[in-house]
């Protein structure tokens, strides 16, 4: 998978966890907590969904790495390589 593929997967799972978020309005550098208002339970659900879908383990210490769409795509690309 390429970085754009991971970006698409991340955005898709993000919008499944938070169905009231319109993916068209999410910017690459939007912070999932500060800008998109996900709380810690939402983030855990997002990590669970990404882990199940991609088979990539995201330990708690790495949560900051998925705090924006761009950083998450980069992180997932590295982990999935």
């Amino acid at each position, binding site marked *: 998978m390429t970085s754009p593929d991971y970006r698409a997967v991340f955005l898709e799972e993000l919008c499944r966890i*938070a*169905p009231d978020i319109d993916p068209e309005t999410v910017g690459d550098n939007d912070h999932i907590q500060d800008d998109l208002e996900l*709380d*810690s*339970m939402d983030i855990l659900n997002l990590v669970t969904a990404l*882990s199940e879908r991609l088979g990539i383990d995201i330990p708690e210490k790495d949560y900051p790495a998925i705090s924006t769409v761009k950083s998450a795509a980069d992180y997932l690309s590295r982990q999935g390589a």
Partner: protein
Amino acid sequence: MPSLGADMEAGRLVEWLVKPGDTVRRGDVVAVVETQKGAIEIEIFKDGTVTELLADLGSELSVGAPLATVLAEGEAPGARPGAPAPSPPAPENAKARAAEPDVAPATTEPPEAKPAPQSPPASVRQPSPVPTAPPAAPGPRRASPAARQLAEAHGIDLATLTGSGPGGAILFADVEHATSGARDTKASPIAEMRKAIAAAMTRAKRTIPHFYLSQTIDVDPAIAFLERRNAGCPPEDRILLGALFVRATVLAATKVPEMNGHYLDEQGFVLSPAVNAGVAIALRGGGLVAPALIDAVSMTLEETMAGMRDLVGRARAGRLRGSEMTQGTITISSLGESGAEAMTGVIFPPQVALVGIGAPQLRPWVVDGAVVPRHVVTLTISADHRVSDGRKVARFIAAFETLIQKPETL
């Protein structure tokens, strides 16, 4: 129409999940009602057979209005008095009886007030005692049946609307809003929710003599416990600090029962034998709900976490149940892992205490005579002075602190 919140006056019936002839058991989800706080599932309060649906989809019904007739086994249809009026005014004490999740009683007598909140039975929609909320499924826009019907009647494409219900669900009021266009004077659902919150909080501050006690608590032992426990755990088995706070609150409430129950106008304080822990959940776009984990004392830490995940998932998806919205006996409001240092909250009536927890902060702390960096949280208890005093609340705080510093006991 049951009261689904302290200041609910009416609700709109948007979905029937039973039909005449169906057998129902106490606790079954039988209907969905849209309120100012979103769509809520209505559970039935007795076993029996549905003989008649008395309310039409889309109708706005006052609290206390009959929804359906249910006859118990062996009860003859003729045994009941004549069908109740379709929309009687809400009984004066209905709001105080927020703990009563009923549908329409088979008689015209108003339901008796419960002496104390109780654990509800399992709902037919509840897949397991501690379900894990799945993410909302992708696909067509979710909308209530009444909203779909109205959109169809006006030729409105649901895809063009922004849903204001939990999880972005399109509510009847959203379609109504769209159909009324520029001449619209009705508030949007989000504005309606703010109005409901405003009414409940104004009432709380006007009628409950609040007082507050705060304490800053070292939570490094709890954080270290979670780091150890969660390391190597798959995400679905991880536990958040918030679950430890809920668990500590629940166990502390068993030690100081004056913090756990309802204050009712007629009876005064009614202590609850069960601890139904309300969990405040902020909704994106504005608004707040506080559904309860019913009988949380009987849960393990893992079950508490699973229950919280389930509540958050269903709050986002607009699938909370009436009993969860009304039977809370003490509420926990946590600012999460980032945010302000302390919060002094407003008690959710008819409860008598609210536990406000600020975000963890790294602070210099004295441990064994030496100053060391520690993560601390500020715990602020809002309490009802009609029921408790400073000494009781201080005991609650001490119990909470002892518990949170020995997280393995939670």
